[in-house]
């Protein structure tokens, strides 16, 4: 069972639909107790970084930290991945989880922002053994829509270029993050979500 964290920002239907297509049961909650007891956690997200403030005030943030500490698989999508960094200049007062170093910043580019559309992911040396990307070819296309991007630091598994090089996915132990939307990225995205489900299933039967 995958627990999808609802923080009243954006739309969870597409992510649920993708898990359902993969034959994976999921449940949506904003209850810290359910988050704490989850077998696997997904934080989908679109919109403003400041919306993650609700996760702190509701107690979900502490529950997520506790679950991660116990080794529960955790996947952050889009703002959900950005939240795994220290913060974002989009909402300077809002603290991220700081599981990865550095803060997200607005794109430094003369190109149009937001970065909307299909772009390619390329593994870093650390991404070579990524469990999330198993079976996904380098330079595969995935769908992005965002204005802020995460820095390329320790733990980054793929990078993407849009005027500059930024982190398009991260991975460390049981924590995974993708800046793009796997639920909207065709077969490549479904494969990534399936890899997460498989990892979560293996862990829960251990």
């Amino acid at each position, binding site marked *: 069972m995958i627990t999808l964290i609802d923080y009243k920002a*954006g*739309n969870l239907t*597409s992510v649920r639909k*993708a898990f359902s297509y993969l034959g994976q049961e999921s449940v949506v909650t904003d209850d810290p107790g359910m988050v704490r007891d989850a077998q696997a956690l997904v934080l989908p997200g*679109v*919109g403003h970084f400041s919306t993650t403030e609700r996760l702190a005030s509701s107690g979900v943030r502490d529950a997520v930290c506790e679950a991660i500490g116990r080794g529960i698989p955790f996947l952050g999508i889009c703002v959900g991945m950005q939240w795994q960094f220290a913060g974002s200049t989009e909402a300077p007062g809002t603290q991220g989880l700081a599981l990865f170093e550095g803060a997200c910043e607005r794109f430094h580019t003369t190109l149009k922002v937001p970065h909307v559309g299909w772009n390619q992911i390329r593994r870093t040396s650390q991404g070579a053994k990524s469990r999330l990307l198993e079976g996904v070819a380098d330079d595969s296309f995935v769908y992005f829509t965002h204005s802020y991007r995460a820095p390329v630091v320790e733990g980054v598994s793929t990078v993407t270029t849009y005027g500059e090089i930024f982190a398009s996915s991260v991975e460390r132990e049981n924590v995974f993050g993708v800046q793009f939307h796997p*639920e*909207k990225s*065709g077969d490549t995205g479904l494969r990534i979500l399936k890899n997460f489900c498989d990892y979560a299933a293996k862990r829960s039967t251990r």
Partner: protein
Amino acid sequence: MSTGITKRIIACLDVTKGRVVKGVQFVDLIDAGDPAELAHLHATSGADEIVLLDITATSDARPILIDVVRRTARQLFVPFTVGGGVRSLDDASALFDAGADKISINSAAIKNPDIITQIAERFGSQAVIIAIDAKRKVWDAPGTATGAAVSTEGTITAEVYLAGGRIATGRDAVAWAREAESRGGGEILLTSMDCDGTRNGFDCPLTAAVAKAVNIPVIASGGAGSGDHFVEVFKAGCADAALAASIFHFGIHDVRQLKAQLQSEGIPVRLPC
């Protein structure tokens, strides 16, 4: 340096009464098939996104057919936009619940621009597409997409229409696109009413005028008839994406073949797909 981002090819399903239809310049509708089947077909044949527009919801003053949206979304794993008859935040919420990733608003945004901000604040700007149906006010060469339809000041003048092209607003398309962006719109879907259904090519000068006026993606629509038209609208029209309906529905064009042509012209596309 390559930007990395690709130009998007969007397949559009114009739907009325639950069936996909195709008209010429917004009238004379003919049946083109089932929305769920066609959406899936387009996605597997390489379309980067699917747009479903309920083209008579506004003129019939009824809500969008939610069950059609739900059925179409079920097995669709590329971005899916739904529009036509979205009048409120509640309408938009119902579409997102049914599986839409983005909603497209047209008439309601003109009548009540605050709705753009409301939906953007709740679901994010990326989920709000402002659809603009525009008709040139001046044509030096009527009926052609490349005619220099410019005002005496040298700027392109096109008027915004509502309700599937039935009501003129007196609003300037470029100015409205700018305002829509400032209110939180995430993309502009610009349909040239002059070119729509003609298969004579997109309105490249108008598309370029809008694309240069805003900093959000502009989707060109209306007039696609050949691969060359897509090349033109991505180059001269500065479009970020191009949308078409009939050329895909009736199998005149294979999306992969179209993308191969674009790639050979130096336009970045998602290929293989």
